[in-house]
């Protein structure tokens, strides 16, 4: 069987298209590269959707945390504290069993017990909390003069937020937010190890890497393959966020622009 056949069989295996049976013996390098790459579909799916949806909740939470009214501030502070103060791994487990109990009472909740929706909800809430903290910090460091200038132009409320506060906040938060995005993608590797079952062996990249490591008892092939995929993913995230960063900073002189620096401090 040539490598092209393997790719045709397994390239979309993680979403249930192609050959059903996973290879059981005589593992080739081609099979490992194809299947682990196929699993990356799930990592990208979880990361992308959680990031896009989390962005909006994070902005709202950051606003709420900066609000004067304790009715808005307290819930936002607690939400951020709960999701940032506990391990994502435990959050996954707790959410999975919570959804299971809910499903027994109301069958409407049954999609939540499968990974594609349940894990996505957890990741969405988690990244919202982390990003909200970043946005909140950025909001506090908006130069006083910018807001005063907006006031002087007679802006207030929504126009002031949309035209001054929000763009400046994003510009200041962007380097840290890039890190958050990278580590969110890394966190997606936890999904299939934390309660959420992989139906019909449709799992993410780490799921397949672990499958091969278990079967061949040789961790030195599948994990480096996984590492290469994730490094490529990280580089593309940095590239895309870098383009946005340039656009956010385009009104500034070259020297004053914030550079994105990768800091590996955001494991959850």
């Amino acid at each position, binding site marked *: 069987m040539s490598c092209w056949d393997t790719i045709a069989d397994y390239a979309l295996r993680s979403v249930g298209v192609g050959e059903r049976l996973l290879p059981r*013996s005589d593992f080739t390098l081609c099979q490992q590269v194809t299947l682990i790459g196929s699993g990356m579909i799930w990592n990208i799916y979880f990361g992308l959707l959680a990031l896009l949806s989390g962005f909006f909740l994070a902005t709202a939470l950051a606003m709420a945390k900066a609000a004067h009214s304790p009715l808005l501030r307290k819930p936002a502070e607690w939400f951020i*504290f709960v999701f940032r103060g506990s391990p994502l791994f*435990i959050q996954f487990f707790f959410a999975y069993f919570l959804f299971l109990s809910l499903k027994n009472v109301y069958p409407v909740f049954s999609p939540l017990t499968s990974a594609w929706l349940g894990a996505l909800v957890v990741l969405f809430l988690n990244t919202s909390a982390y990003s909200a903290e970043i946005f909140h910090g950025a909001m506090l460091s908006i130069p006083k003069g910018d807001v005063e200038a907006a006031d002087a132009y007679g802006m207030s409320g929504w126009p002031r937020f949309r035209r001054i506060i929000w763009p400046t906040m994003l510009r200041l938060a962007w380097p840290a937010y890039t890190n958050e995005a990278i580590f969110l993608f890394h966190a997606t590797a936890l999904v299939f190890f934390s309660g959420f079952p992989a139906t019909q062996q449709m799992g993410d990249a780490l799921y397949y*890497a672990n499958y091969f490591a278990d079967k061949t008892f*040789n961790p*030195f092939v599948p*994990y480096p393959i996984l590492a290469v995929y994730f490094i490529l993913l990280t580089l593309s995230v940095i590239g895309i966020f870098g383009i946005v960063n340039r656009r956010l900073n385009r009104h500034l002189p070259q020297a004053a622009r914030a550079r994105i620096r990768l800091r590996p401090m955001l494991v959850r």
Partner: protein
Amino acid sequence: MFPYCSDPNAISGLTWLSCYLTTGKHTSLYLSFLTVLVLLAITAPVALVFGFGGATAARSRFAPLSWLGKGYIGIVRGVPDIAFFLFFVIALDQAFEYLRHKIKCPDWDQPIRQGNDFVVCAAAKLPLGDAPQWVHETYGFFLAVLTFSIIFGAFAANVLYGAMQAVPRAQIETAEAYGMSHGQSFRRILVPQMWVYALPGLSNLWMVLIKATPLLFLLGVEDIVYWARELGGTKTPKFTDYPHEDWRMWYFGALLVFYLVFTRVSEVVLARVMRRLTHGQATMGGEAQRKAAA
């Protein structure tokens, strides 16, 4: 545990709960919290030593050593840490067995990798085939600690490397002007001063380390996650005196609260340490303290 627990079917409410929560298996759950704390207590200093070694190596003027240090620091960037956990546990185990195999069975002629098997001679197995259960568990725990230390050592190396760079250059120049050698100025000037710059990063790292402890479960150690899954699952009257439905949600809820309290307490303590360390330092924080007191 209590005398009234002899017949669990006759009691109910809080009495039942008090008996239920003190069964032998629950004691194992409580002891596994100790496992987590022991892991933290060993890993934190060992990782700090690894980190110090890595940072010193990265600063070295001898290029290959500096590449080694920078490679170690860079190793955890770009790849999920959980992949490293899963990788190192098998890789370290095989590395140890391979080394012992080379030493103990020099006249072994078969290949070590036979298809999908990793075969070493019986004397090189770790732990030995006839070892008691506790040796197996301790070995597993040891591997887990080593894995954690290697990964968090790389994080710590990154923080310490940054802290060493942050110490004002003038301090080192002054030391050199006094005729101190490279090693002397490193020991006497750089290392004592770098901690205040390193502490924010190290406290962040401590939080991350706390939040990484549930990953012990993936390394095959019987930790709190393992016991929460075991004890929370549905129990039928056939197998236990305390039957209940699926309570895993409540057990994991309890773990969530445990971690929240733990990180909160750490945060408060570390903020205090930071205040103590900034006292009298020529930094923004130290200046703010001086002004507040005056």
